[in-house]
């Protein structure tokens, strides 16, 4: 059965249809939430909340074809809510630029992974949400703006800033982030 039919049935109260939709989405939602929150426990809470709200508020969704985008929006909002409620039990790993080690033994892909991870951690959750919605979930920027309820100009500028950091970090010729620095001065 196609997704639209499932959404229509779920909207009519068919929980089995909703379960099929949820099972089909949960891996992607969990991955997106973990990327945004950088914490699997918080991500689990956010996805639980998003799916719960999806079931409860499904009848608010006017266009069944927009179910996936709507679910992403619920998940991102739940992530941002989680971020607002961050507590001491969440250990925020603050990676200082000066602490970034050089990683000569790693493959290029592994090194990129480390750098992207570090840059993602330096962004706030809303910044990560923009990166994740666009690059991980493949949303056009207009949809990212609509999902987050912010102007497209804001999306572009924040994405540009985030990508700039990543490119600087990844580009071997511009090692401002990965190079050791001393008292704020490039070595």
């Amino acid at each position, binding site marked *: 059965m196609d997704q639209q039919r499932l959404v229509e049935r779920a*909207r009519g*109260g068919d*929980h089995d249809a*909703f*379960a099929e939709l*949820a099972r089909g989405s*949960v*891996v992607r939602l*969990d*991955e*997106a939430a*973990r*990327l945004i929150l950088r914490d*699997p426990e918080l991500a*689990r*809470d956010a*996805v*639980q*909340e998003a*799916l*719960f709200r999806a*079931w*409860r*508020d*499904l*009848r*608010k969704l*006017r266009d069944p074809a927009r179910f996936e985008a709507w679910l992403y929006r619920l998940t991102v909002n739940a992530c*941002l*809510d989680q971020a*607002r*409620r*961050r*507590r*001491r*039990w969440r250990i925020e790993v603050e990676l200082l630029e000066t602490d970034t080690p050089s990683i000569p033994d790693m493959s290029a*892909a592994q090194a*990129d*992974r480390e750098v*992207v*991870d570090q840059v*993602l951690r330096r962004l*706030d959750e*809303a*910044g990560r949400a*923009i*990166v*994740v919605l666009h*690059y*991980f979930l493949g949303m056009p920027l207009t949809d990212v703006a609509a999902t*987050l*309820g*912010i*102007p497209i100009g*804001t999306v572009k500028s*924040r994405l540009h800033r985030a*990508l700039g950091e*990543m*490119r600087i970090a*990844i580009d071997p010729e511009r090692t401002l982030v990965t190079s050791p620095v001393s008292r704020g001065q490039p070595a």
Partner: protein
Amino acid sequence: MTMQHRRSAELEATLVDLARGPYPEYIDDVLARTARSRQRPAWTFPERWLPMFGIASEQALAPRFPLRAIAIALIVIALLVATVVALIAGAQPRIPAPFGVADNGLIAFERGGDIYTADPATGVQTAILTGSQTDVGPRFSLDGTRILFERKLDYFHSQLYLARSDGTGLTLLTPEPLTLAAGDLGRAWEKYQLSPDGRTVLMATETSGVHTITIAQADGTGVRRLDVGMSASEPSFRPPNGAEILFIGEGDQGLGLFAVNIATETVRQIQLIPNGFGVAGPSWSPDGSHIAYWMWDETANGLTARTHVVWADGTGDRELPSPPGAVWNAHATWSNDGNRIFIARAYTPGYDDVRGAVVPADGSDFGVEVAPASVETNCCAAWMWSPDDTKLLGRTSPITGTPDKLVIIDVATRTVSSVPWTSTSDPTWQRLTP
């Protein structure tokens, strides 16, 4: 492939690699929970329970005494009582009336699961509730002597506590954990509040996915759910005595504003909302004579909310006037004198140009815009008047930023100043006797 596309593809691949994790087994728990929850409320509360209050009354037969002796004795007793009352009243701090203008006291707020108070004049802050627990959403009682807060047990469950305003004398009000349900804005005062007399606490709760109203005794002796026969969200006590509770209801009649009499549990309809419209933020004027709320067209593209004011009996509903170019307004917050309402007023159908405005509650003009768009009174911002009505305290909510900045707006001068503390949930301002 251009360099940019190649990098985008690499970034996407790296994100996929970073995101990889175990299969989210918790989906079974979620589905078990949703299976138990209803999308639309069909209301029964068989598990409703009431606190047991032992009420014993005995009547004593009064023996006959000489009337003169009784009169003299009564006069003496009255004089003694008056003397004692005068002494006690002189020794204790006076407390403000629950409604109306009061003096400004401390601001309480939460940061990182601890609760602090701070003096807005000096900036000095004091941690009043600390420890390993996650305590959020402090709310001062209307007389400023106590503080109500939520202790989060996990994502869905909380317990409510009441303490003295200095954080001592903790009383657990809800031994059974509850799921608290905020309204559209998620503000702390949408979830719980003390009654005007301070004897009960009203809570917006969620039971099996349905919004419900729960009342707890402020001394921790009992909790009961109020049966209003429909989904009920954003409840609030009606001033000045709290005999009624206003709520957004959704039942057989449709969506609307309703009030329930606490003693009789009789529900009355105040205002039905037209089909296709949403409603949020109902709040009483400080004298309990009017209700402000905002409603919007759910079928429209973009935001269309408009604030309305209606008499408590549902008559005389009127929309607050908007200046040319204004598209929507919402987040109505009454001043303590009941003459003005703070609203967020927007000039686009989104959040691009949202300003804070203070408008006359009688709708006689457009009011004054006191906060520029840069203050970011966007979705989910929380605003409240200072007890003396000269200032507005806000937790701004930029969607893309860190939503923990507190600002104070001087209503007369329209100056906006940042407060030197951050808060991860809504703050509260203590009322003191004028």
